[in-house]
């Protein structure tokens, strides 16, 4: 089962993780990304996420399909927040379930690495005295 979501609301781990994995599975592996407070010496007040939403969902779907074809994982969940996110809150939750954890590790790693390369989502860091799109940095 694939669950792919872009949402403005905080991520509810319990309901998200309870929906990942079935009684056939032995292992759920999850990655939770949180914006860092410190960014190259500047203090991040909050983050603003923007996406090309329809394309982002298509890319997430493609990544989930690739992972599910490459490893025997049964469920794949990708939830990414949009809009304002405070530094101590989760911006992304990725979870996969599999019968054995080795497969889950490999799949989870692939999914996160690929999301960060190909899904059209951008992060703007907002400081006390301005803001900056992170992707613009050299």
């Amino acid at each position: 089962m694939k669950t792919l979501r872009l949402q403005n609301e905080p991520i509810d781990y319990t309901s998200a993780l309870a929906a990942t994995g079935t009684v056939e599975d032995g292992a759920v592996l999850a990655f939770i990304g949180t914006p860092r407070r410190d960014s190259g010496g500047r203090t991040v007040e909050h983050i603003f996420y923007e996406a090309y939403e329809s394309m982002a969902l298509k890319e997430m779907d493609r990544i989930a399909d690739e992972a599910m074809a490459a490893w025997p994982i049964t469920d794949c969940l990708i939830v990414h927040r949009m809009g304002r996110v405070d530094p101590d809150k989760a911006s992304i939750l990725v979870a996969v379930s599999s019968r054995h954890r080795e497969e889950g590790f490999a799949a989870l790693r692939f999914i996160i690495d690929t999301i960060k390369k190909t899904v059209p989502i951008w992060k703007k860091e907002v400081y006390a005295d301005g803001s900056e799109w992170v992707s613009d940095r050299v």
Partner: protein
Amino acid sequence: MRITIKAFASVKDSLGFSERRLDLSSGTTAEGAVRAVERELGVGIPDFDSLLFAVNEEYCRRDRVLRENDVLALFPPVSGG
């Protein structure tokens, strides 16, 4: 031909719009379309070489030839997660 151009993140800030309709001569490439917009608005997009292009929600090369009703999207390297 008519196409739609979408801009995101810092590219949206540079161009001053998130979506715009464009009239182009047939045979125009993705990059050609963006250059036409820059000329029309009198702006230059910084770090042009690092930009990513997509047509109809699929990544494409910048020499992709556009067709009637294509939706061209232009954005900086992604930074989600």
